């Protein structure tokens, strides 16, 4: 049992990091009243932009990578790509007051297409002579572990066997949680999401907060895509490999009732559910494994139902979630 946990937990954690990035980003965005269903697309864009950056850097640098640039360039590309998606979403929903669900779905269509297109055609477009995109050098940098982790046995396995982005995810989640609940900016942000008319009357800049929250949310979520490609997938981009993790991240938002710090554990739980089917002995019957893959979604549905049954005020979504704000409608 113990050795099972030592092998299971790290794998669950590795699965959970993209979900944690995605859900933290979505929570920050939703707190401003923007229900961003474009997060799955943003995560694809974040991932592929990192890949594009790393691809060009690896090619121009030849064999030797400068560690700082090798990490910095993909990171920067990823952040810029996700930021642009965030700006697009904000421009359409805040300035042009478009419907958030429709805009989000269009962003997901676009983002997933963008990722798969460049993932599948990058080599052809630049005319390079390699069969697949394999960024092992960059991935090696992203996967560098703490030097003393090896010597700590199971303890090191469970806590220190991850690339640096995993710790960044946890730090961002804790910071976001603190920011939302214990700072002035967080209070004002929540006010914008709950009741923008009142916040507006109190002199809070609605547009500014919505832009800041949604764009930083998108950038955080984009890092999830980057982590997936560079760390989890060893720098190999495969089309559609990222799968439906973006939607799971959105499900996590509900599961954690809009709390990034809870999301740290919840995403590990989801990560575990996501791969549980590998560990459940079903013999030769592969079909049953497919049913186990449904677990994270079923659990989300159950939580959704339970939280609506209990109907506690502090467990509700932001009051103005999904609605545009137009000052003159008051």
């Amino acid at each position, binding site marked *: 049992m113990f050795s099972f946990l030592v092998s299971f937990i790290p794998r669950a954690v590795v699965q959970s990091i993209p979900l944690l990035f995605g859900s933290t980003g979505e929570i920050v965005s939703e707190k401003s009243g923007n229900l961003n269903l474009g997060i799955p697309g943003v995560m694809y864009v974040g991932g592929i932009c990192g890949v594009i950056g790393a691809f060009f850097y690896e090619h121009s640098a030849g064999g030797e990578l400068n560690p700082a640039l090798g990490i910095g360039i993909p990171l920067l590309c990823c952040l810029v790509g996700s930021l642009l998606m965030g700006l697009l979403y904000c421009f359409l929903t805040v300035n042009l*007051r*478009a419907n958030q669900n*429709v805009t989000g*779905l269009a962003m997901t269509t676009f983002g997933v*297409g963008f990722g798969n297109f460049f993932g599948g055609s990058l080599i052809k477009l630049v005319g390079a002579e390699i069969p697949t995109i394999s960024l092992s050098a960059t991935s090696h940098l992203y996967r560098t572990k703490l030097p003393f982790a090896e010597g700590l046995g199971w303890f090191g396995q469970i806590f220190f066997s991850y690339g640096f982005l995993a710790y960044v995810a946890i730090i961002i989640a804790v910071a976001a949680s603190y920011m939302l609940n214990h700072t002035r900016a967080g209070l004002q942000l929540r006010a914008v999401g709950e009741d923008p008319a009142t916040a507006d009357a109190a002199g809070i800049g609605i547009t500014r907060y919505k832009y800041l929250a949604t764009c930083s949310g998108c950038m955080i979520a984009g890092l999830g895509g980057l982590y997936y490609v560079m760390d989890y997938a060893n720098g190999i981009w495969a089309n559609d490999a990222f799968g439906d993790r973006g939607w799971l991240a959105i499900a996590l938002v509900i599961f954690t009732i809009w709390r990034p710090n809870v999301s740290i554990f919840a995403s590990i739980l989801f990560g575990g559910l996501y791969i549980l089917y590998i560990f459940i002995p079903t013999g030769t019957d592969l079909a049953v494994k497919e049913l186990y893959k449904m677990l994270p*979604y079923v659990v989300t549905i159950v939580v*959704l139902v339970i939280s609506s049954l209990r109907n506690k005020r502090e467990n509700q*979504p932001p009051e103005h979630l999904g609605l545009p704000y137009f000052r*003159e409608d008051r």
Partner: protein
Amino acid sequence: MHITKRKEMPIGQAIAIRLGAIVVALVVCGVLTACLTGLNPVDVYAAMLKGAFGSPRKIWVLLQEIAILLCVSLALTPAFRMKFWNLGGEGQVLMGGLASAACMLLLGDKLPGPALIAVMFVTSLAAGAVWAFIPAMFKARWNTNETLFTLMMNYVATQIVAFYTIRWESPKGSGKIGVINQASHAGWLPQVGPSKYLLNILLVAILTVLVYVYLKYTKQGYEISVVGESVNTARYAGIKVERVILRTLLVSGAICGFAGFLLVGGTDHTITTTIAGGRGFTAVMVSWLAGFNPAVMVFGSFLLAFMDAGAGEISTAFMLNHSFGDILTGIILFFIIGCEFFVNYKVRFESKREVAEGV
């Protein structure tokens, strides 16, 4: 800059704005394609037209794509008019398709042809309806968030289909079901006229008229609109809101199931986890952008199906990835979504002096 809500825009002007947005979007798409492939944009559009209308077969496929997308859009519309965000079209289509496939496999040699098709029809509609009814029940009773509930139901449906795909795979180990009843054609919808797609297209055309009439001229359609406008008004007028939600979602899910029936019985004769092909999501945008008007949805479905077929041609011709179509679709959608603002709001630029004078 001063923004005010418009009362009502003349219909001609509204159409002009939307067409303008589509033209601008097409130009942007053309320029982007030209940058990526190094071709001149005119050639790109020629390739797209060839991809969509190049041969009789391509035209039939295009019409079929339009019909199925339209069918799913029609299905979601009654729910959307009620402000019930049914993002579960994908799962409802899958469940409908699965029910059809199950009937074909299990009853294929037990029932005579017409009876089998009747059973498939009924079970598909029922399966789709059940898949929409579950979230609706929780929404009506406990106000559970339907956007996420229906979304999650998609993945549950996908896994159920994946389960049966392995259970019923043929040949064993291939990981897919393959064409069902290849020899006997049991459960295949009859071919009408020159193409196997014609029947599907005709059925969806009839459905379009039915949905239009249902929404516009029946009491139930009216109730849907009232609930969508204001739940409190509906309650005050004596409409049982919970019942309307449940009934509407049964209709919505059943039509999705019907789309699954058409896909499995009419054209594909098999079931895969990707048979809905993202239409459940595309249809959300088609329906919403058409302002929930079935007639306008025909045009929206055409535009998106055309872009997809055209982009497919570009991808094959220049050996690019097929996802190129999604990028173009995304760009067009952004422009259409954005232009709605100019239909609904009036923007007036005024100088500082005017503001000071209180003009």
